[in-house]
């Protein structure tokens, strides 16, 4: 990591940790999660809640914490922008980016690099 990136991380990390309890995955999708950090989900889900969410809206794994995705859904309903981003299929995490600056990755486009074999399937109506 170069000096500029280290300095950016030094600003980004405490700021985003304080506001969003950010986990510095380096490929931010807060816009498609109602500004709720999905990496706080213990299953690392990037595309919505698992089937184990408790009836009171708390997490299957941590019964005394709200499910990250319940919060994401509720907050996304209140956002003026990006509401329909909850419906996007988010690609697999690039674990090499963990701990790097998502701001720099956004500017350089690194966070938008997809594995070469990642493509939406053709939809097939059956009826």
């Amino acid at each position, binding site marked *: 990591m170069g000096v500029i990136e280290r300095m950016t991380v030094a600003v980004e990390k405490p700021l985003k940790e304080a506001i969003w309890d950010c986990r510095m995955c380096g490929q931010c999708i807060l816009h498609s999660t109602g500004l709720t950090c999905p990496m706080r989900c213990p299953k690392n889900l990037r595309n919505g809640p698992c089937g*184990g969410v408790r009836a009171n809206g708390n997490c299957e794994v941590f019964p005394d914490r709200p499910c990250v995705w319940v919060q994401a859904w509720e907050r996304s309903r209140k956002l003026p922008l990006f509401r329909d981003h909850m419906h996007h299929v988010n690609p697999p995490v690039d674990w090499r980016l963990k701990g790097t600056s998502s701001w720099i990755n956004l500017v350089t486009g690194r966070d938008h690099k997809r594995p070469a074999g990642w493509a939406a399937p053709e*939809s097939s109506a059956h009826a």
Partner: protein
Amino acid sequence: MRTPSRLAGLLHAGRFVVTAELSSVDSGEPEAVWRRVEPLRGVVDAVNCTDNTGAHVHMSSLAAAHLLVEKGIEPIMQLAARDRNRLALQADLLGAAALGVRNILLMSGDDVTAGDHPEARSIYDIDSLQLLQVARNLRDRGTYLSGRRLESPPVFFVGAVENPFAPPLDFRPFRLQKKVEAGAEFIQTQLVFDLARFHAFMGRVEDLGLLERVFVIASIGIPRSARGTHFMKEKVPGLSVPDDVIRRMESVPPLQQPAEGIRIAIELVEAVRSIRGISGVHLIGIKWEEGVVRVAQGAGLLPRPVAEVVATVGGGA
């Protein structure tokens, strides 16, 4: 029409399908699998082989599924993102196809903290939606996630799960939509006890135009005892068991509770069958194959169509 599996063929032919679950096996003997599955022969169209269900270790779903293929019973192999990274998941999908497994059901999996090795490291490299898309890319484009080409693509019918009963309720139909977009061709739901909620969910699924794009199979649990229903309500993540079901089980003496549970399950089968867009039922009697048989009988689901009705590609079961 040629389809990847018999299950797919029946669904495409508009038949109401019946599936069930192989009770998990803690043994290294093939007979342990065969003993448990034999009562289901001719009673269901395909049998789910679970993948360390409830985050408890059992015989691998891949091996169990292959043992079913050997005996001419069609498996649905479950695969959870919890225990494997993207390399291992893709490797198992290819291996399964090579061993004649033609239906796969992809999911995140119950967390290890719910199981018998709570201290284990869970993987969750990719999520269930991403896994769906990876499986479809393997099959449809003949490439790994890396983009590298396969020698020949695997053939399978791709399924997913959804829980209409867990919060955030309004998002659940959209989550199903996302799964369809990622490549799910059939869905098995969480156990349906709460019919009102299930109706509402299916109404939204229909509004989203998904009924033309995915087959929905409703899971029906067969309560065996009042204690069991209590356990499901309290211990199984994401499962909602209404109080009137529990009260009904409690209202009869223990010896008659299994019969009452079968009656409840039959009523549920009949109820979901009348909901638009429900293409079949998945009967779950935990370590209770006889319960599955009696519900299938009682709900008029027998006999099942014979295998020759559908042509499959790739030489599967």
